């Protein structure tokens, strides 16, 4: 099914008359929060141990849905991407967005052959506590523990969360000299990030 036809099908599944085989919301069981919270699977990783189902590192090679990654402890990992893998690179995107040199965090399931079948991959994601040192046209100059970082505002994507209220696209309440937390996509091997969300007080 082409992507547009698939979107139309999924739209009708949730909003329209129920398509054959689709499980409606009520079939998921009680909506009470405590009912949903109780059957959480126990964490299978002991304190201080490496989580086999998680990989961080940088992509050094890509072959047909398989990412070759070196972690910061110099171990190498192979990561499988499938149609069911979510890929984030500044915004939810597709697996073609991955390029050699990208930093990555991946979560999934470790296969018997040692590869990681990824459920979710975040490319170049960074989460920084900063001070806003200057504001320019579509750019925030940030200070991160004395190091300068250039944060690019991406129209249509960059959002601001003021005082923990719902995210808005209005960035005009950001102030020079104030503290902020930014989540964004690093531009590999530079001190620049594209901004996804800026958390600040207003």
């Amino acid at each position: 099914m082409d992507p547009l036809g698939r979107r139309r099908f999924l739209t009708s599944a949730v909003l329209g008359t129920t398509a054959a085989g689709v499980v409606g919301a009520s079939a998921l069981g009680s909506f009470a929060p405590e009912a949903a919270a109780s059957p959480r699977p126990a964490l299978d990783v002991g304190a201080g141990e490496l989580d086999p189902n998680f990989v961080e590192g940088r992509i050094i090679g890509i072959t047909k849905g398989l990412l070759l990654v070196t972690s910061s402890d110099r171990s190498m990992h192979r990561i499988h991407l499938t149609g069911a893998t979510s890929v984030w690179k500044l915004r939810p995107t597709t697996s073609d967005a991955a390029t050699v040199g990208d930093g990555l965090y991946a979560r999934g399931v470790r296969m018997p052959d040692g590869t990681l079948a990824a459920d979710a991959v975040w490319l170049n994601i960074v989460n920084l506590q900063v001070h806003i040192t200057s504001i320019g046209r579509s750019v925030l100059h940030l200070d991160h523990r004395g190091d300068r970082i250039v944060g690019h505002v991406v129209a249509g994507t960059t959002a601001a969360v003021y005082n923990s209220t719902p995210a808005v696209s209005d960035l005009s309440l950001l102030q020079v000299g104030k503290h902020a937390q930014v989540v964004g996509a690093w531009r590999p091997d530079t001190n620049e990030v594209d901004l996804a969300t800026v958390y600040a007080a207003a």
Partner: protein
Amino acid sequence: MLDWLAGVQQFLVGGVLVWASTVKLGTGAPAAARRSALRRLVGERFAVVAYRAVGVVELLLGALLVLPPAVVVEAYLATALLAGMLGYLAYARLRAPESGCGCLGDTQVPVRGRAFGRVGFLLVAAGLAGWSTGWWPQRPLAAVALLVLEVAVVVALSPELDRRWLLPLRRWRVRMSHPLGSVPAMVPLESSVQQLERSDAYRAAVNHLRSDLLDSWEEGDWRLLTYAAATAEGPATAVFAVPLRDYRPEEIRVALVPEPEPSPV
């Protein structure tokens, strides 16, 4: 000319040393000392004592430089002190890159190029002061103008003082020009995700979700968000419909659509 130039420098170096000493002998000194690289250099116990000792030396030497008579040895002592300061900065940069230098203010600013530039500038000034022949230079107006200019250079090279003049200036510029005022208004995806995560529909489905957000699109008054899910019957796609413009998490709808086994892309 050199004589005149040198005569001004003792006031610059002396003035800055006295200024620096007031920070080190003031009430904020213990906190500033603990944030500085001195803590690493002499240990936690002696950091405050060492910091205050440096302040006393700075005050004495600064007073000697500013007050008459002008003796050449004062300039040599200042040069030695500033050379030592340069070494201290290099140590801080290499061994304690996160801590500040504690030089001219009690705000913690890691040692970077500007701090080196400031001490280098003062070192050259102190070296020049060695050529001074008298206490008060001729052409006092020109001397004062040069002194003001040099102090401005020192202030510009002091990251500790940015919040006093640079940030207010930038804040004023932003107020005048509104550089981010023209961002087009829209409902950010993040806002829909936040609303979704606070809904009962999401709480009911979250244990089935395997991935982060897969895809999103808009349909009329709804934003649709999909996630990969796993059910007892096999893989599925969870589709959520979130009100696009309103905050009504109770109206969020969800459907689980069965999928064939995901194929490699």
